[in-house]
Each structure stands twice: as C-alpha cells, then as structure tokens.
C-alpha cells in the first residue's frame, strides 16, 4: 500500500478517482487495457476527467485502484507530466468500496484545508467542476454531490432536496415517483468528511451520505447537459453519441468534416478513410485506423490501428485495437471486438462479444460471447 512518490505541490486542490477493479463490465476491451485507459472519443476515459479537474484548479489526482497495473501507471505518469500535475495511485489491498479509498488517501486529500473532489471513474458529462467549487464554497457545508435527471428514476436511488439544494434524504429504487434526480457520481468534500469514514470496505452512498444529510451537511447541485455511466458497451456507445452532440454544440471544430460524413463524427488525423464511404452519424475513428472504400459506419467506436475493409457495414459496434474486419461484413447490435480480432470476409456478427486475438470464421447470428 503506498503512493507513487512524495507530494510537493501543497496548497492546491486534490481529487480522488474511484477506479476500483478490473472493469469486467467493459470486457472484452478491459482484457487488453485497464478501463481508465480505454479510449472514449479518442481519449482515455480517465483523461476526460483529469483534464476537466485540472481546468478547475486540481493539481494532484489520486487513482484508487484495487489492482496493480504497470501499464496504467506508466502511461498516466506521462500524461501527468504533460499536464503539469501529480498523479498517484492508491492501491487497496482489498476492495474498500466507494468510501474506504477516501480514508486510505487521507494523507494527500487532507494535506491542506481546500475541499477535494471524489469521482466515479465511469462517468462522462460536461464536467461541472468549477461550478461545484463555487457552489460548495457558497453553501459552506461539508459536502456537495452532483445530481442528474433520469427518465426512469425507479431503477436508481434518487435524491430529495430543497430549493437551496440541501439534501433531505435518499430513496433507493422508489416505487412511486418522489424525484427524478440521481447521484451522478461526482462529489466535493471538505477534509472534515474524513472523520465520517473508516479505512474498511465502506459504501459512501449507504454509510456516509445519509448521515451527512441527517446533519444538514450535504447539498445537491444539478447537472446541466448530458450525463452517462459508460461502464458497459451499450452505455459506452450511448455516451459517445451524447458526447459528440455536446462537442457539436460547444466545440464543433473538433468534429470531422469530409466527403461522405453524416452527422457528428470524430476522426483522428492519422486515420485514413477510403472513397465512397458513409461515416456517421455518431462515429469515433481512432489513430492509425484504415477505413477502405465503400464502408458504411454508424454509431460505432473504432479503436487505434483497426482496419475496416471494403463494402462493410457497421452499426452499434466497438471495434477493438488492431482488429481487421473483412470485406462485406455486417456487424450490429452492440458487437464488441477485443484487441486484434479478425473477422473474415462476408460474415454477419449480431451482438457478438469477441475476446482478444480471435479469428472469426463463421457468422454470429445471435448475441453471444466468443471465447
């Protein structure tokens, strides 16, 4: 149990990102790469969060992990250097839930009097960190949690609060409508919150928040714009659509313009796109990807180094790193290819989850996992 070096940048804000375990819900992608490094819209998931934190004044980020990942530590060390911040890893010897890791990182998080952020690692949105600091300092209490509106609140735990934002209580999976606001997995706390937390497996939602609310110390801040938990492939793709739409509204120069492009499409500058293709809407194409002639892609993420051969049609897929998808292939219905998968020519893949380094030689007619 330890931290990747000494903290020399006291006096600024800190953040803890709850990474946790092996990211099994995002398999087969996470069999090749730790979930925080899986590229969402051509950027590792965790960098979306880290960059937004930095923009809000964070200078040190702690990643709470329950497994040791050399690759992640090396890659993020480079990113930290680029951003001029510290990134450290807090390794849990046993999974400590959503609250325990905060206590484990106490020495960093409580090294000054500034409030600190805590985030779930699967969340994608227009991160409201600057507003959080402002709102949190305004109400002056111990904690602020971001809430977001959902269509079907009965599937979640909802948050009940007054017009000032002061949280009254939480209701788990309400049978009758009481609120449509749920915990969005982003918090800011004063260091005093650490008194409420023990260094053991502990749930922040069940064992910390209700007591803070009971003491009148917890406030809710409403999120504007999109929000998605992208921890599984279906939601990853939905999140991508929302993200690209947000790009169009806020930063449309980032989106790709070119022949055959329909709607919001993100293409890395090193990717090659052939003739007579139709790309989009809602497609992300990663670095070094080759799209041959006559390909149609809708609502997909194509990761680094993949090749999509001629006349192929893809919808609702995640194509893993270095995959080769043959000619006249049809893939749809949340098919996910792990790293370095080959799909032979003229096949149909319907909802196939394919583990890394497989060669697919027969159609997958019904959703299933290909070991």
């Amino acid at each position, binding site marked *: 149990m330890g931290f990747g070096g000494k903290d020399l940048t006291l006096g600024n804000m800190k953040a803890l990102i709850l990474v946790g375990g092996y990211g099994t819900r995002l398999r087969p992608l996470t069999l090749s790469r730790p979930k925080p490094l899986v590229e969402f819209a051509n950027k590792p998931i965790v960098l979306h969060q880290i960059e937004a934190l930095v923009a809000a004044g964070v200078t040190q980020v702690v990643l709470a992990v329950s497994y040791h990942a050399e690759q992640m530590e090396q890659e993020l060390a480079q990113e930290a250097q680029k951003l001029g911040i510290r990134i450290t890893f807090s390794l849990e010897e046993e999974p400590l839930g959503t609250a325990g890791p905060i206590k484990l990182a106490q020495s960093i998080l409580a090294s000054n009097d500034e409030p600190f952020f805590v985030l779930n690692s699967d969340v994608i949105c227009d991160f409201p960190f600057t507003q959080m600091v402002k709102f949190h300092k305004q109400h002056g209490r111990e904690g602020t949690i971001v809430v977001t509106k959902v269509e079907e609140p009965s599937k979640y735990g909802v948050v009940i609060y007054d017009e000032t934002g002061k949280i009254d209580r939480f209701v788990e999976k309400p049978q009758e409508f009481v609120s449509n606001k749920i915990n969005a997995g982003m918090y800011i706390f004063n260091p005093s919150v650490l008194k409420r937390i023990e260094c053991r497996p502990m749930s922040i939602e069940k064992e910390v928040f209700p007591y803070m609310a009971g003491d009148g110390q917890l406030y809710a801040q409403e999120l504007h714009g999109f929000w998605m938990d992208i921890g599984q492939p279906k939601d990853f793709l939905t999140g991508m659509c929302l993200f690209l739409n947000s790009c169009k509204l806020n930063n449309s120069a980032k989106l790709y313009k070119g022949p055959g492009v329909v709607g919001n499409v993100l293409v890395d500058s090193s990717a090659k796109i052939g003739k*007579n293709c*139709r790309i989009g809407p809602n497609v992300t194409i990663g670095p070094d990807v080759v799209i041959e*002639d*006559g390909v*149609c892609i809708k609502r997909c993420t194509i990761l680094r180094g993949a090749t999509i051969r*001629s*006349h192929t*049609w893809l*919808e609702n897929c995640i194509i893993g790193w270095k995959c080769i998808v043959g*000619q*006249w292939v*049809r893939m*749809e219905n949340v098919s996910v290819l792990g790293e370095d998968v080959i799909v032979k020519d*003229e096949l*149909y893949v319907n909802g196939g989850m394919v583990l890394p380094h497989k060669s697919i030689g027969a*159609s997958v*007619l019904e959703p299933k996992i290909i070991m």
Partner: protein
Amino acid sequence: MMLKAVILIGGPQKGTRFRPLSLDVPKPLFPVAGLPMVQHHIEACASVPDIREILLLGYFPAQQLQQFVADMIAAYKIRIRYLQEYQALGTAGGIYHFRDQISSGNPDAFFVLNGDVCGDFPLQEILNFHTSLSTPSLITIMGTEATRQQSTMYGCIVEDKETHQILHYVEKPSTFVSNLINCGVYICSPDIFKRVGEIFNSRQDFYSCEDSEGTESIQLEQDILMPIAGTGQAYVYTTDRWWSQIKTAGSAIYANRHYLQLYHKTKNERLAVNGPDKPTIIGDVYIHPTATVDPSALLGPNVSVGKNAVIGAGVRIRESIILGNTTIQEHSCVLYTVVGWNSTVGAWTRLEGTPCDPNPNKPFAKMDNVPLFNAEGKLNPSITILGCNVTVPSEVIVLNSIVLPYKDLPRSYKNEIIL
C-alpha cells in the same frame, strides 16, 4: 434409328413446394444457370443425334409455354411440341393419352424425362445400353445410388447385378429395400403402349362404378413399373453422374451450381470470364448478355444473373440466382439467395440464406427436401427467396426468409415468411 423424347412438365397444381418462385412462372420455366429448368432437358435431348422430336407434356395453359417452345425450336433446330393434357393424367396417363403423337413416324424408342429432376443426363449411354440388350426391354430406367437412409424417399430398384434386369420395384417404401433409386429418366420401347393399354383397360373395369374422373390418372411408377418389374422386360442403367430432384425452392441454388459446372464440359462460352473493365469473377458465373454489372462487383462462385439485371458498384454475390430486371445497389452482399424478377435491393443491404446441400461427408447423399417448418413449428433455415417485384431498403438484413411477390419491406427480417 429414330427416337423421340417426352418431357413431363406437370401443371400449375404441381410444384407448390417451389413457391414462391413458381407463383409467377411455371416451375419448368424457372431459370437455373441462366436457362429455364426444362431447357437443360431439351439441350440434353437435342445433343442425341437420333432424337428427332421433343414433346413437352403437361397441363399448363398452352399460352404460358408458347413463347418458350418457339424459342427452343429456334435455338435447337429440332421439332418441339407442347401437348396439353385437359386434366392431370398422371405420369403414364399423359403418355398413354398422347400415344398416337408419340408413336407417329414409328420411333424405335422414346425417352421419358421428369421435368423436376436435374442432372448430367447420360442419354446416349442409356440408349446404347437399351439397344444392346439381348432380350428386349420395354422400359429402361436411369438409376443412381442413394444412401440407405435417403433411398426410401425415392422409387427403389432391385436389379440382377449380372444382367441389370429389374427384379423388384417399389415407390417410397417404408422400410429399406435397395439403395439403387429411380432418377425419373427412362427410355421406352413403343411396345410399352400395349402394356399401358392393358393396365388402363383393367383400371377402367375396376373403377367403372366410381366417379370416372380418376380412371385415366395412371402413374408410371406405381402402375407400370411395379407390375413390369420381375418380368424380365425392365432394366436399369446405373449412373454415378450428378443428379438431383428439384422439389423445393432451395434446391434451385444447388441445381444452379451443378448446371454451371456442367457448362465447363460443353458450353464454356456461357461462363463469365475475368478481364479489364469487367467484374471480378470467382468460379462459375453466368451473366446474361443484357445484364449490367459494375466492374467493381465481385461475383461467384455459382451465381446466375438474369436479363437486364443491374448490379451496382462494390456488390458481392455468391451462390445465388438474380432474376431478370432486378437491381442490386452498391455495396450490398447477396449469399445463398434467389432474388425474383423486377426486384430492387438497396445499398449496403445483406440478403443471406442457409444452404441445404447434400451431406458432403456421405457418399451418394442427395439433397434433403426439408419441410418449411421443424417439429417446434419454427421455420427451418433455408435459402432466402425474394418473390418478384420485392423492394428491400438500404442497410437491412434479410436472413433465412421467404418474401412473397410485390412486397415493400420496411426493415430487416430474420427467419420469417413475409406474406
């Protein structure tokens, strides 16, 4: 020597298992490897020099066959006539009814071919065998070997291995009798009319008290072959050349592949070849001269493209029949499918069926004529068939489905019959 050939083509009430492909055209005229199915029979007959006349026998309205018969006469420079039965007379009933037309000119023998079989018919060899027999044969059957299990779906022949005389004949027995089966191709001596007449007259007596309609329906297999077997007057000529029935629409793809393969022997010019500004061809492909195929398309193996069809850029077609006036738009992929006349398939669409080929690991296995539905009432996966004038939108998949004529499909379909 003077010979004739009779091709039994049946009528509209027959070939229902071939629907929806037989809804728009009489089944015998359905194109396989670019030619109406029965033209392959005519071609085989026309290649036997002694055959002077071909008689098509069936009960389709004459005007449905008029143009075809005229075309065949022009193409093969041989006498061809369509003899229309006023009602379904049975395979032997029709032959007996038209015995004067068959016998006119005193042929030495005549072939009888069922219209719903396909194959590499060794007609000259059958003739040589038939005429070389020391004791005359009233009827010589073309036989072939089947698996023990599948043989009971056919007429089964027991032969004397030395003389090839037929010792016993039974149609679709419930238990195993012999794995030598009847191919529905015969050569008969004109004397057979005497035997058929006797049977016909005996049935006349038998049925005289009943409704008179059925009396003339005589089946060649049950009513003629069974009694003649064992009398020393029937022989079997066994072949191991390709042969199959064409019962279900699915068998059209199988027959298409084999007829294309046969073109290598005699009709090489019918097979498409690779070249500059031409589509890429893999294996055996027939493209009608009036069809337009984009040079970036990839066709084959075993594809037939009909009259005035338009195949767009980047289209892939394999193991399929594309009928006349059909358009397949760019980047689409067509596998194990029959696309009916005047149909339109959008871009990036996938039409895919499941082949029902004979088990390649079993010698002598034939195609199984699987029923449409399995025991659970689910559609058995089979080739995909679009009837005529069907429109399929862009970017959908039609998998293992049968689409009846004049449908505009709004979406993807899998394992469905679309009425």
